[in-house]
């Protein structure tokens, strides 16, 4: 996509150049750019870099799996400058932020691009939850896209996980549960921003008749490392389940 933004005047026109007009024009361009950011993120083949000196993320395509990865959405790496406009640097609110995929887009991603065996089943479950939240509104908030995005990113980064029970919290966050009895229970609430709340009920390794109960907050990236010592793998992942 090509942005229809007028190019800056060249040197032969600089004699008539009004600095106030230039600042105004830059602000206008910035606002336009911000409004178009959503489209821009999806079609980063734009030639805007030649106009603004902006470097798009290399190789970014709409169907790129990285587009859905958490590290990608955490923000553009610092070596990619956002703007080189003459006016003062844009305020934080004016800076373009990564576009948040909608719930429908995320479910489509699960259905079409997710590698797990249960992709279709999970997509149907998410569709169902979206429908239920619509029916029970306002008691039930709609699915929070940030939470769903984190959930999908977590499943993609942990491919051995078996199909989880998926429910919504009243506020619309996604909660995934892996359970094999009362003392083998692992539940994670994805609250968005890469954070999770989790709870683990697991047998005590020294005394299997007693149950360890642990809960807390973590980041999506560190969750598996945190719960692994509780033996969650033994009932939440496929390979160990088959081995058992």
């Amino acid at each position, binding site marked *: 996509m090509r942005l229809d933004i007028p190019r800056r005047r060249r040197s032969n026109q600089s004699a008539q150049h009004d600095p106030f007009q230039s600042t105004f024009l830059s602000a206008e361009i910035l606002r336009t750019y911000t409004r178009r950011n959503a489209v821009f993120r999806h079609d980063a083949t734009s030639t805007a870099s030649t106009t603004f000196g902006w470097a798009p993320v290399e190789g970014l395509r709409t169907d790129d799996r990285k587009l859905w990865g958490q590290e990608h959405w955490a923000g553009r790496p610092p070596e990619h400058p956002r703007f080189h406009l003459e006016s003062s640097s844009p305020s934080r609110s004016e800076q373009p932020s990564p576009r948040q995929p909608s719930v429908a887009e995320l479910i489509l991603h699960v259905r079409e691009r997710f590698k797990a065996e249960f992709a279709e089943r999970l997509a149907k479950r998410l569709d169902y939850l979206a429908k239920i939240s619509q029916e029970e509104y306002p008691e039930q908030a709609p699915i929070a896209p940030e939470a769903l995005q984190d959930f999908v990113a977590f499943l993609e980064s942990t491919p051995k996980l078996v199909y989880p029970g998926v*429910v919504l919290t009243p506020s619309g966050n996604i*909660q995934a549960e892996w359970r094999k009895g009362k003392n083998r229970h692992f*539940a994670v609430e994805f609250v968005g921003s890469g954070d999770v*709340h989790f709870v683990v009920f697991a047998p005590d390794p020294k005394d299997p008749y007693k149950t360890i109960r642990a809960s807390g*907050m973590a980041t999506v990236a560190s969750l598996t490392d945190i719960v692994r010592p509780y033996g969650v793998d033994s009932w939440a992942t496929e390979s160990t389940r088959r081995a058992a």
Partner: protein
Amino acid sequence: MQRDRVPDTDHISRYCGGAQILPDGRISGTAFRLRELEQYLSVNWLEYLGLGDRDSEIAEVRRVLVAKGRNLGTTARLAVLNAGVLREHVASASADHRVLDILHEPEPKDPSHAGIYGLRRDDTLMEIAELIAQAVQDTILRRSEPGCPREPHGCPSLRRQAWRAPARGDPFR
């Protein structure tokens, strides 16, 4: 005002939305989370209704919820818990031996209304909510008529029958 404590032998019901029901029909712990600004979990004290049998009590609770303007989902369920089992289970299993209080909170349109006190909106909320979900005895479909079989649930020692109904309304389980 001194509020009555729901006796350990009595039962309470909690309305659970369809999005909080797991595909296998179990109630998830998310149904027992405090919402914003809530001080306690709203429940209904079934024996207070004085109707004699569970089906009539559930039917009355459903009627009251509708009268209060609650939008009851087609796949929603009512979870039934025994007050004593709930208190004992949470106190013995929670890391901080949490003591929950179940107090009568009558409302003009809902005389059997009660509240579960003792939940806190902090890191422990998820654990306590999961423990409450473990203590659920029966789950009853929102749309079921009196006489519809209930699903045995939660504590095995309290199961009254071995029959387990399919989770109706969710074809994708």
